[in-house]
């Protein structure tokens, strides 16, 4: 029920507030009524046919870095 998946925006239709996203190989139409300033190639979190939020590539990188560092603590 609370499943949400990261997907990449590949087309935007501003008149209807809809976008086409790619989830791996699968393409889907989703509403972008809940997010602001999305652009092609942005990654968004998809839930029940809506983009909920943008995913920050910088923050994702930082979190992955934290995982790697966890093993190095003394």
């Amino acid at each position, binding site marked *: *029920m*609370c499943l949400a998946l990261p997907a990449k925006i590949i087309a935007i239709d501003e008149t209807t507030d809809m976008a086409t996203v790619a989830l791996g190989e699968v393409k889907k139409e989703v509403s972008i009524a*809940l997010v602001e300033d999305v652009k092609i190639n942005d990654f968004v*979190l998809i839930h029940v046919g*809506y983009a*909920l939020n943008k*995913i920050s590539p910088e923050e994702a990188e930082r979190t992955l870095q934290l995982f790697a560092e966890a093993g190095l603590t003394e």
Partner: protein
Amino acid sequence: MIKYVDEFRRHDLAQLLSSAIKKESDPQRQYNLMEFCGGHTHAIFRYGVQDLMPENVKFVHGPGCPVCVLPIGRIDNAIQLTQNNNVILCTYGDLMRVPASGRKSLLKVKAEGADVRMVYSTQDALKIARENPNKEVVFFAIGFETTTPPTAVAIKQAKKEGLKNFSVFCNHVLTPAAIQNILESPEVREMSSVVIDGFFGPSHVSSIIGSQPYEFFAEEFQKPVVIAGFEPLDVMQSALMLIRQINDGRHEVENEYTRVVSREGNQKAQALVAEVMELRRNFEWRGLGMVPYSALQIKQSYAEFDAEKRFAVPQIHASDIKGCECPRILRGVKKPTDCKLFGTVCTPENPMGSCMVSSEGACAAYWSYGRFRQMKSKPVEITPIEKKGTAECQ
């Protein structure tokens, strides 16, 4: 490879995190960490995260599965709505098999001829309304803050389009109210039969509401909260962050899921919800009973889209299925394996209670991924103390 998914499931990093947790946790103490959200419960079981933790770090499963906490009376209401020949009831798939009173479910009434349609999105429900102008299309809406904004968008859109045959049976509930209710419950507060040392904050709920709403009870109840992503490495990193806070005696709101969650959350979505919905004075939760200001209702200015008003939906108080321990499981007081019906009478194919229906329910997660391991290993040492009048079932 799926970006932002596969990297957060890497086995080598899981081993690193696992050894860090072993190193940093104090063997002399117990760490009981409650994951509020069913999405975390699901991830913990699916990826065997508990097996990567030392003996003294335990996950306690909370009530954050919207299907599981919906009281039976509300499903009875929805079934009643379908008995009106003019109604098409649209809902998310998870609700179809939830047992209602009299061994009914939406799936069963559909098989008997009621017009119940499973939709993936509120946009689908709007489409059905446009295509069936002579029918009343009711969207049976459930979910936490994550799922509420799409309902609000649909209501606004229906108003804009002048769709006269669309309405929403609103059952949206609020996360902070439920967490507070658990912390205030006598089982947790006074009798300390359930010791919760820290919380995993929900991922997707927080993407909407932000991390700020948790600050109040981290302070008030002096419990650490770490907002955690739903992938297994997110859960492990967050466990490590909680362990560090507990070791230091801190009780702060920290955010592990920074790639999506900010302190303020999604303000556009919040504004949309605030325009269409308002707090309900009281709402019944399965397992928690009546919780004040824990749910939303449709505002007077959008009353024409409120199915409760349009169809004069009555308040039904139905009792839970006999023998089903969902209410106690949802409070973290019992485990699925404590239920006599678990795995015998009650399975995902033939669920007796809501916790076995949704894949985010604790019973379904135990059955699908953890059943045998849980039976072999030592169970969590939580002894329930029954208090008369708190549980509304049995």
